């Protein structure tokens, strides 16, 4: 093992030639071919790719829920050995604690990490306010809309003040209008907090609107097919999505993803 070079800036997190194989023998599925990817500090990296391409596997590896078959997953130069509050995770849905109110959900992280109840409550109130749910703090998740539930999930992850936010298709189950509003909110939150973000999505538009780096993945086994560095994330104008540059990049990625989606479809039919 080498110690990180003190001169070169260490990436916030990195995947070094990571592969992942599920199962064994004839049933084994190669989810990831060697993937090498760095998440620079403050970057907002979006992974896009067809279903089953291993996007979520990459996220689960960095979260510490899975271990790589080969290669290394590093956080600030040190191998990831398991889940850690430095890496907050937001799931698509079904991960809120349904028996806790909004504020209790958000206070869960600080409380679990030993903060006194009063301080945890203060932190929770701050983040509940940040996602615009101040007047719903005492409500329970089942009393909220899908979009509000996702905001609770985001506030809960932020309340631990993590260094990285890992978001697994957080808006996939929401309707288009709600999704657009939440994308604007997430962009504002990212511009305020400058967390490093790894975001998984099916939506090219969402990726271009939010990301400082878009990583396009191939069909299974997942590899990196192309990388883009859009600049639209710096903008505060929702209308940026209609600019010619945005439209051109979107069309290009759309073309790439279409090829991969067709491959993925063939794979499914062959199974």
């Amino acid at each position, binding site marked *: 093992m080498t110690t990180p070079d003190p001169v070169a800036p260490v990436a916030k997190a990195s995947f070094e030639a990571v592969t992942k194989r599920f199962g064994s023998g004839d049933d084994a599925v190669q989810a990831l071919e060697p993937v090498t990817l760095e998440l620079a500090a403050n970057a907002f990296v979006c992974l896009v790719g067809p279903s089953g391409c291993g996007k979520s596997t990459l996220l689960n590896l960095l979260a510490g829920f899975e271990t790589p078959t080969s290669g290394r997953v590093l956080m600030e130069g040190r191998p990831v050995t398991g889940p850690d509050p430095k890496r907050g995770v937001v799931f698509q849905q079904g*991960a809120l*604690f349904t028996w806790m109110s909004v504020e209790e959900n958000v206070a*869960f992280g600080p409380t*679990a990490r030993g903060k006194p109840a009063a301080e945890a409550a203060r932190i929770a109130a701050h983040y509940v306010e940040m996602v615009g749910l101040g007047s719903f703090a005492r409500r329970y998740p089942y009393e909220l809309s899908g979009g509000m539930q996702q905001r609770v999930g985001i506030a*809960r992850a932020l309340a631990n003040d993590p260094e990285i936010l890992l978001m697994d298709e957080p808006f996939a189950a929401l309707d288009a209008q709600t999704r657009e509003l939440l994308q604007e909110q997430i962009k504002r939150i990212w511009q305020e907090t400058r967390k490093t973000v790894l975001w998984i999505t099916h939506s090219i538009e969402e990726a271009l609107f939010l990301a400082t780096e878009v990583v396009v993945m191939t069909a299974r086994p997942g590899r990196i097919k192309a990388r883009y560095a859009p600049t639209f994330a710096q903008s505060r104008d929702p209308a940026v999505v209609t600019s010619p540059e945005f439209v051109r990049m979107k069309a290009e990625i759309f073309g790439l993803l279409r090829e991969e989606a067709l491959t993925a479809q063939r794979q499914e039919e062959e199974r």
Partner: protein
Amino acid sequence: MSSAAQAALRRSRWLNAGSFLALLAAWFLLTLPLVGGKPLVPPLFLPSPFAVADTFATLLKNGYQGKTLLHHIGISLFRFGVAFAISLVTAVPLGLWMGMNESVKAVLDPPIEITRPMPKLALLPLLIIWFGIGEVSKIVIIVLALFPILSISAMQAVRAVGTRKIQAALALGASRRTIFRRVIFPASLPGIFTGIRVSIGLGVTMLVGAELIATTAGIAFMAMSASDFLLTNVVIVGVLVMAVIGYALDLVARALENRIVHWGGKEG
């Protein structure tokens, strides 16, 4: 709730009440001397509601075989309560443990699964040899019936807790202890309550079964003993009291369930 759903609910309430009243009316019709001075069914087989109400009042005042009606009810509730409490505090923790730990499950699952389909009442003669005809054999037989239901429902509830909730808690920095106490246990409560409600129904059934044999007090004993003397009124009072007890216990469990697991089954 939409107005259509409200209308449907109102409609089914009316039908509920109507079907109940129809049964009551049938009882009146069959037992009152409406035509020719004699009821359709002789009182020996089915006394009239008025006669049963009279008997109920007499039993309340004078008791049955020297013991008041409340005494008999009390004895029955005591047996049920003790057995239910013992089952709850042993079976639920064990079930939770089985759900958490694969080895514990591997050891305890076979004996529970093998004995589960066996009708526990069949063990009563053996239990009477072992523990005599006192309270112990009756409490043991109820515990034996409730234990598998409560432990298996708790185990299944734990195993059904969503992986994402546990992963979310891990990523938020929770220890194993915290995850059990604040995630797995509360997430299992709806499943545990389902087990509790099933076991209340079965527990009352077992109670009645145990009281029919070799005992001198209890509400089912009262009915059984009255049957020997063809005191149909007393038998019917006994049956109705047992029905009310079963219903009331279920109502209490449901009220507790609605209060404690208010989120029950609803995802968020």
